[in-house]
C-alpha cells in the first residue's frame, strides 16, 4: 500500500486504520464531513508521522453526489497518482423508531449508509479498473445479514452494500482489483457511546488490526472480531417462523 483514499476518515475505526497504514508510510487523501475535523486530523497526522503526505477535502454523503462527487474523486486520484486502496468508512447509526415515524429519517439513513457508499464504489471502480490494480475496502455491518426489529433500516442499507460488493468483487476480479467487505460486530466508538458494553464489544484498535491484515491478505469478507462469523451463522439459521417472534 502506498496511496490511500479514505471516506469517513474521522470515524473512530478509520482513524485507527489510518494510524496503522501511516506506520507503513502511506500517503493519504482524506474525506470527512466536517472541515474543522479534517483540519484537526491533518495536524494530528503531521505531528505523528512527519514524513507522509496528507491531503483532504470535505465530503457530505447526503449532498455530494453526481458530478460533485466525481470531481472530488478525480481530484484525489490526480493528486495521488496511482491509488492502491480506497477505504470507505463513513456512516451513522440511525434511530430506528425515528425512521419508522418519518420517512425523511429512513431515507437519509439509507442514503448515508447504503446508496452513497455504492456511488463511491461505482465511481472509483472505473478508475481502478483503468489502473488494473487496487483495493476497495468497505465497512459494512453484521446488521446487514438479517433484518431485526431493532435496526432494520440501518440493516437494509448494509445488506444492500453486501450484495453490491459481491457483484463488484466478481466483476473486478479479471481486472486485478480487489474488493473487501468488512463486517464488524459491536465496536466501542463515538457512534455507540451510550450503549452498555458487554463481552461482545471490541476495541477499535483490534478491529483496525483485523482490517489492515485483511487488506494485505486480499480477503473477501471478514468478520471482526472473528467470533461474529459464528454468531451470524447461527442467527441466519433460525427459521423465519421463529425469528419473527423473537425480540432482537
Amino acid at each position, binding site marked *: 500500500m502506498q496511496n490511500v483514499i479514505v471516506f469517513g476518515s474521522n470515524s*473512530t475505526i478509520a482513524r485507527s486504520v489510518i494510524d496503522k497504514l501511516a506506520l507503513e508510510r502511506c500517503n493519504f487523501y482524506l474525506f470527512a464531513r466536517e472541515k*474543522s475535523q479534517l483540519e*484537526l*486530523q491533518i*495536524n*494530528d497526522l503531521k*505531528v*505523528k508521522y512527519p514524513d507522509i503526505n496528507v491531503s483532504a477535502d470535505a465530503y457530505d454523503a447526503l449532498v455530494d453526489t453526481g458530478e460533485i462527487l466525481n470531481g472530488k474523486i478525480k481530484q484525489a486520484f490526480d493528486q495521488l497518482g496511482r491509488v492502491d486502496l480506497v477505504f470507505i468508512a463513513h456512516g451513522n447509526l440511525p434511530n430506528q423508531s425515528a425512521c419508522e415515524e418519518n420517512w425523511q429519517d429512513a431515507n437519509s439513513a439509507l442514503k448515508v449508509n447504503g446508496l452513497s457508499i455504492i456511488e463511491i464504489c461505482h465511481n472509483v471502480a472505473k478508475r481502478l479498473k483503468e489502473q488494473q490494480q487496487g483495493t476497495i475496502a468497505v465497512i459494512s455491518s453484521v446488521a446487514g445479514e438479517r433484518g431485526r426489529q431493532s435496526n432494520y433500516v440501518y440493516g437494509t442499507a448494509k445488506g444492500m452494500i453486501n450484495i453490491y460488493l459481491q457483484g463488484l468483487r466478481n466483476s473486478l476480479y479479471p481486472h486485478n482489483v480487489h474488493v473487501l467487505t468488512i463486517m464488524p460486530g459491536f465496536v466501542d466508538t*463515538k457512534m455507540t*457511546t*451510550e450503549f*452498555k458494553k458487554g463481552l461482545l464489544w471490541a476495541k477499535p484498535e483490534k478491529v483496525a488490526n483485523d482490517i489492515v491484515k485483511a487488506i494485505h491478505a486480499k480477503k473477501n469478507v471478514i468478520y471482526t472480531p472473528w467470533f461474529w462469523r459464528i454468531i451470524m451463522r447461527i442467527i441466519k439459521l433460525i427459521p423465519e417462523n421463529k425469528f419473527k417472534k423473537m425480540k432482537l
Partner: protein
Amino acid sequence: MIEQYSWGRIKASKPAQIDFPSANYSFLQRELQYLAKGNLRSYGDEAYNDNGIILNTLHLDHFIHFDRANGVLELESGVLLEQILNLIVPCGWFLPVTPGTKYITVGGAVANDVHGKNHHKVGSFGCFVDSFTLLRSDGLIYQCSRELNSHYFYATIGGMGLTGIILRVKLNLLTVNNHAIVTKAYKFRNLEHYMELNAELERQSTYTVAWIDCLASGRSLGRGVYYTGEHAGYLERLPAINYNKRTFPFTPTKSLINGLTLKAFNTLYYNRPVAKSPQLVHYDPFFYPLDKLLNWNRIYGRKGFYQYQCVIPNAASDAMREILRRISISGNGSFLAVLKTFGSISSGGMMSFPRPGLALALDFANRGNSTLDLFRSLDDIVLTHGGAIYAAKDATQSREVFEAGYPQLNEFIKYIDPLFSSNLWRRLYGN
C-alpha cells in the same frame, strides 16, 4: 441506560446524557448541569454528574503541534498520557510529571494538577502547562496562561473540572536520552528509618517513592521499600520492555482482597529480595507498575473500593505515625500503601493538592460503615494537623475537612462555571 464507573467502582453514576464537546459546542440545555470527564481514572465521585450532561473528552484526541527541537507539545485535552509517551520518547522527550498510570487524559492531569515521583524536585503537572483553552458555558473560549486570563488559569489547574471544559493544552516537555531509567531499591525498617533515608535520598534523586506494608505494627510500623530513579544517560544497549499486559477478566461478587491474602502479600513483598546494585529498566514498569494488570480495580469485587490519600505537613510526622497505626489496627488496609514527600514547588493552582509534607495513599475494599468509620477517624487527624485529602481519590470527605484543606477555596469558587457541577461538589455543597 447510561452508566459510568470511576476507578473505585463504589457506585455507578447515571448521567442524563453524554455529549461530545468541540470548539463550537453550545450549551443548550441550561436546566441541566455539565461536567467534563476524561478516562475515569479518578477513584470517587469527582468525574460523576448524575442527571446531568457528561462531556466525554475521549474523542478530543488530536495532537495539534509538536516542536521537536524545543520540546513543546500542543494537543487536545482527551489525549492519553500513553499516546503522548509513544510519540515523544522516541524523539528524546519525556513527560516532566507523570502519575502512577499512563491511562489518564491530559485534561484530567490538569484538572487534578497531578503529581509524580519527582514532586520534591519539580512540582506538579501544572508547573509544565504553558497555556490551555477553556470553554465555558457562556459559549466563549478563554485562552489561559500565567499572563492571559490568569485567574482562570490558576482556578482550572486542580479545579476538578468545575471551571469549564479544557479543550487544548500546551505542554513543556523534559529532555531525555532514551527510554531507560536507572533505579535502586532500599529497605527501611519503620517510619523513622524512612524519614532518615528519605532526607538523604530525596536530595540526590529525581524520582523517589516508597511502598509500605500497612499491616506491620509496633516497632515495624511503616516498614517498606524505598525506590529511587533517574533517567539513564547515553546507552549503547537499551533495556527492552519485559512484560505483557493482562486484563483482569471479571468482577468477582466478593472482594478477593481479605485479611489473609493481604497479610500474605504484604509480608512477601517486604521480604522479597531487593537488588543491592542499581537496575536499568524501561520507564514503563518503573512509572506504571499497576498498568501491567489492566482493570486490576475489579479484584475488589462488586462493592468496589476506596482510595484514601492525604498529605500531612512536614512538621507533623507523628500524625502520620498515628494514621499508620490506626490503619494497621483496623486490619482493613490494602495491598501496598504508597508514601511520598512533596516539595515546596507549587504550580499556583488554587485547589492543587500537593503541598510540602508527607503524602500517603492506599486502597481499602469497601466494607461499608467500618471503612467509613476508619476514614472519619483518619480525617480527624488530617484536620487537626493542617493536612488535606486529594479530590481525585475522594468519595467521602466532609465539607469541614475540605474547607480546612484548601485555603484558597473562596477565591476558587468565584471562577466555577455557573452551569458546571459534579457529584463531588454537590456532596460537599448541595445544589
